[in-house]
């Protein structure tokens, strides 16, 4: 067996070196000016629920990001899931991200496609921008359509229910739903930043995109899904713990550093006006 002093020295060196590498990486991420910085509210950040309070005293916030799908079906128009294809993540974009789209289109068996595996890319998130306005506009159109349908056939219980849901959805879209949308992807940080120069509205993070296809009336549509956002979970340091221990509205400034990893730089309870706005 190894001599215990030698084991101790090797073990201590290994543990200390590993921690040093991790901590230096975190320090580098937070050095200099942040790559971007967003002011978010409870609309864009929600509590992560993993054994919250029972066995886990830590508080972790999760970025509540959304996508704007190309087209919504009747049944999911109010709650487009993240697993749908964003309108912008089409064949051309997949090609730009390095996927062999021609091969994807030609292969018969879905599972046999080599390029079906997800790839790590850079994703652009937009806060309270055109994508959000489009989502509000869509919700308004659906609400108007449902209202008109009900006016034409006021006895239908189903139409009544639809009109009520659509109106609620429109109100939620204006006051509650997240305004953070993934709106683009790329592989070159400089190019993406040149396209989206506003660092207080557009944040660039690492994430995963997986090609997929859906059967539509006109044939097979090839597009992509966003399967993961690496910067999704944000730890709340003890300093800001008080802000999050109840369900009151809050405002958080989140910075994204040199490695595009996030951290909280400021957090406070939201102004009374914001809270009353939500109650309306």
């Amino acid at each position, binding site marked *: 067996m*190894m001599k215990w002093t030698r084991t101790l020295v090797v073990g*201590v060196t290994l*543990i*200390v070196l590993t921690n040093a590498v991790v901590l230096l990486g975190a320090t580098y991420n937070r050095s200099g000016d942040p790559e971007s910085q967003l002011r978010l509210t409870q609309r864009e950040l929600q509590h992560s629920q993993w054994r919250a309070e029972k066995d886990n005293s*830590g508080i972790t916030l999760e970025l509540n990001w959304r996508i704007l799908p190309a087209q919504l079906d009747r049944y999911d128009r109010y709650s487009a899931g993240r697993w749908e294809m964003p309108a912008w993540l089409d064949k051309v974009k997949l090609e730009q991200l390095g996927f062999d789209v021609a091969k994807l289109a030609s292969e018969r068996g879905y599972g046999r496609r080599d390029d079906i*595996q997800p790839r790590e890319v850079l994703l652009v998130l937009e806060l309270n921008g055109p994508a959000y306005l489009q989502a509000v506009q869509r919700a308004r159109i659906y609400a108007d359509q449902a209202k008109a349908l009900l006016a034409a056939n006021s006895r239908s219980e189903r139409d009544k229910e639809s009109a009520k849901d659509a109106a609620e959805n429109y109100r939620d879209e204006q006051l509650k739903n997240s305004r953070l949308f993934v709106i683009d992807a790329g592989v070159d940080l400089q190019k993406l930043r040149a396209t989206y120069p506003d660092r207080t509205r557009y944040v660039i993070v690492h994430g995963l995109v997986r090609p997929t296809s859906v059967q539509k009336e006109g044939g097979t549509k090839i597009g992509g899904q966003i399967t993961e956002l690496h910067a999704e979970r944000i730890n709340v340091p003890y300093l800001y713990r008080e802000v999050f221990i109840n369900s009151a509205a809050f405002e958080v400034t989140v910075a994204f550093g040199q*490695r595009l990893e*996030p951290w909280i730089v400021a957090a406070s309870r939201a102004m009374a006006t914001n809270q009353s706005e939500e109650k309306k």
Partner: protein
Amino acid sequence: MNIPSRHEAQQRADQILVFRDELGRLEQEGILVLEPDQRSRVVDHHRNLLAQYAQNFDIDRDRRAGQLSLGMRIASLFGALALSSSVFFLFYQFWGWFSTIAQVLILVAAPLVMLGVTLFIQRKDSSGYFSKLAALVTFACFVLNITMLGQIFNITPSDNALLPWAALAFLLAYACDLRLLLAAGILCMIAWVAARTGAWGGMYWLSFGERPENFFPAAILLLMVPQFVRHSRFADFPPMYRIFGLLTFFLPVLVMGNWASSSYLDWDQDVIEGFYQVLGFVGAALAVWLGVRKHRTEVINTGVTFFMIFLYTKIFDWWWESMPKYLFFLVLGLVAVLFLVVLKRLRATNYEVLRGEQQS
């Protein structure tokens, strides 16, 4: 005689017990009766050896002690797993109430302190049960350390974390002669090599399991370790490498023999499945043959197990739907009987080879 490891000391002690039993029988049957002088010399020598081993390694000196130590091994394994879980939940229970600096200090200090405790216990505890317990807690503390730092600083997950984990597990395994930690180190190493292979093939590292062929380089590496690294003081370790190496090879082969869609090969699905089924049968038969030739029980057992699994999977594919169930299970039973006959013949051939080697 110089006994370098606990394993060899235990092996010698077991041989002494067998020798005593056999000598007793020979004396009863009147075939061999030792002179009183010879007998007392043998008895004294064995007594001294056993006492020395017991002092140095806390070995089992008789069969009852052997039965008890099996229970102790199981208790120590469960204790180690439970204590590791306890450390994990202890930190989660309170970490939210500490400042970031305090969190980092606790996380860094925990594996360092536990490493010291493990080595201290190892010096005092010749049985190895308590040092096994402490070593696994040290490893758990280090895994928690790096995982939680990642969570505190919102660091993107990386497969590189597997390397220091593997390194510490190997260090503790070799320092304290612990197979459990060796298994932990091997598993971290398998995951890291498979993740790297997947990443070089253009995959995201966490998706490495979606292409089972990513595990083949790790299997080759594991099978090569006992060939190139001498384990004279760790007789239990080479079989561990071989078993994990064979599992890392045969399990992906089994998966791809049935689900070709996960393969890198750009062939027709049926061809891929057929290729891996043949590879599975040939590989398992080769493992049995090699195991018999090299007298490696673990290789024979793993080869036989996988040969049976491949065979039964194929029989299921062919006949489960078409045959009446009584006939299907009858075929399975007959296959098992046929297999027994083949293995019996193989064993007989092996005896003849051994006898030939001894005579020459």
